[in-house]
């Protein structure tokens, strides 16, 4: 067999086969919004429960055997032992099937895949989180990771918005963060209804209003594409250089390991070279297909 210098990865393989999922059991389900739920789960195999580690920003392939696999970021923090969490928006075949599962049900899990947020280079800096809708899921992993090592970082801003108060995810975390005096948390909705007493407006506008300082800071954003596109210029206006801004991208994926071909942006595969990219990298992308 003629193979040019293969560099092999062998992390958490089930029977040496990267496509074979580990089975996990659902511990708890939190209905975040009418279409979004967070599933807490642990591995059926105790050894995996003991050994499994990941980094904030990485993703996994969850599956319902017989229905299919889909890609989700791990939304719990690597600093916390215990169940893993994934946040699932009900939009397609697999996510609908995942929404039909109950506590105790079994799912398939492959991962963790992809790169992660550059925690090392964020130490000692002020961190500005900008999230929209379900885009809080990957940020939440990083936020808890940073809050669990609070003294290693400077000021922390969390600016989060959703379409309406009913679309806010992780309300229990938002409450905790709002009460935490060491971080400034601003929550807004695009359109306020009767009971909403917080801010109203798009995340990008709220960010401009709050105008966190750019020196010695890193901005991390995630949300729907329109929000990301509108937030980059605001951050640049505030003085953030493209190297100081990070986001995580989403693409259709099947394999999660750079083989099936569909998640490419130019020569890069979002699954293998991402999903975390700096704005500087995104600006140098050959393609506008993101």
């Amino acid at each position, binding site marked *: *067999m*003629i*193979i*040019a*210098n*293969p*560099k*092999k*990865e062998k992390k958490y393989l089930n*029977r*040496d*086969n*990267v*496509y*074979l*999922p580990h*089975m996990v059991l659902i511990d708890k389900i939190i209905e975040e919004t009418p279409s979004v739920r967070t599933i807490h789960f642990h591995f*059926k195999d105790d050894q995996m429960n003991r050994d499994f580690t990941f980094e904030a920003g990485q993703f996994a392939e969850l*599956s*319902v*055997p*017989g*229905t*299919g*696999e889909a890609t989700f970021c791990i939304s719990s923090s690597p600093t916390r032992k215990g169940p893993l969490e994934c946040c699932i928006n009900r*939009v*397609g075949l697999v996510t609908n099937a995942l929404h039909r599962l109950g506590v105790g049900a*079994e799912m*398939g899990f492959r991962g963790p895949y992809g790169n992660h947020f550059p925690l090392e280079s964020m130490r000692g800096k002020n961190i500005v989180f900008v999230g929209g809708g379900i885009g809080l899921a990957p940020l939440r992993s990083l936020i808890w990771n940073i809050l669990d090592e609070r003294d290693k970082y400077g000021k922390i801003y969390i600016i989060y918005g959703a379409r309406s108060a009913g679309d806010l995810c992780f309300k229990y975390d938002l409450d905790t963060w709002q009460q935490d005096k060491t971080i400034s948390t601003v929550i807004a909705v695009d359109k306020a209804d009767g009971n909403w007493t917080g801010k109203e407006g798009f995340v990008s506008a709220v960010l401009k209003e709050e105008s966190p300082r750019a020196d010695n800071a890193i901005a991390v954003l995630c949300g*729907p*594409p329109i929000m990301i596109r509108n937030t980059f210029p605001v951050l640049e206006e505030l003085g953030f250089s493209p190297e100081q801004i990070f986001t995580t991208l*989403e*693409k*259709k994926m*099947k*394999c999660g*390991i*750079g*083989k*099936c*071909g*569909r998640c*490419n*942006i*130019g*020569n890069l595969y979002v699954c*293998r070279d991402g999903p975390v990219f700096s704005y500087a990298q995104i600006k140098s992308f*050959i*393609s*506008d*297909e*993101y």
Partner: protein
Amino acid sequence: MAVKKINKKNIAKVLAVWRREYNIIVPSMATDVPAFSEWDGEDISFLDWYRNTAVPPKSVVLPPMEKMMSFRKEKDGYKTEVSVNEDKQIIFGIRPCDAKGLAIIDDVFTNGYEDYYYASRRRNTLLIGLGCTNPQESCFCTSMDVDLATSKDVDIMFNDTGSEFIAEAFTAGGEYLLKITTGLKNATGTDMKTAKSVELEAKNKLTRALDTRGVSKKLQACFNNEDFWKQVAAKCVSCGICTFLCPTCFCFDINDEMVRKQGARYREWDSCSFRLYTRMPMENPREEKWRRVRQRVCHKFEFYPMNVDIFACTGCGRCIRLCPVNWDITRVIAGLPRQSDVKEKASALKG
């Protein structure tokens, strides 16, 4: 090991010897289109009709559809089973262009995480190359760094000398095959000379060439030239045949099926020509046809070389020969706007 020679009349005997230890896969008309499939133990008529198959030999190691695992739902949860055919096999008669195609796919499936299914089959597969004596009008392999008569990607290379083949082994696996084939004579200097003249004659039959100098840069320069890509894509019908029959295309889809408590996960060839290939519930980055055509051309000649420093095209000509609307990648590459044209146009627009 010395170069051996084998009389064409004895090919069936030689294959029969190898067949005791290996499954023998040869070019075949058994299916609707010429493809590689298991040898029946007798028929070697492919030596007469075979120029190249329509379906490339990648189908032997990356089948169009395969079962990755089967599920059974039991009281204490899902039971998952995997079965891969790991029989030793020989692909006999692979052309140098297709051998290079397999080498490209090998790299994709074995670097990083190893693809269990592909690697299990590939590691048990020996390639026996057959020098190309009758290239077709659509072939342009020599432009893509492929040699008609030899290949570094095969275990043994066979070359035609008229009534005989000369056979040279390049790997331990290849040497073993020649060793168990008793009674082979060494090729003489005259045989080598004859093979060389056959090779030259074959080369002269090649009519098509592709100038690949600066292609990646040109593609980069015209990436956002929507008008150009729309023009290029105009007659494409998005049927995907160019990708399915390409020896370097490897994209696949994964799908599940479940009836009552039994189910399976399958993998099938997929194609960047299809709209659904990249569609997500909320958006699709390549909804428009010209974006999908651009993706195919750029993947072969710009993106893939950026990652691996080799064009993901071997000049086999299938995507030209078998396209239902005569779409021609060599014409697209030859017609790429020159960088100076792009600059002139840009400055003209500015002025």
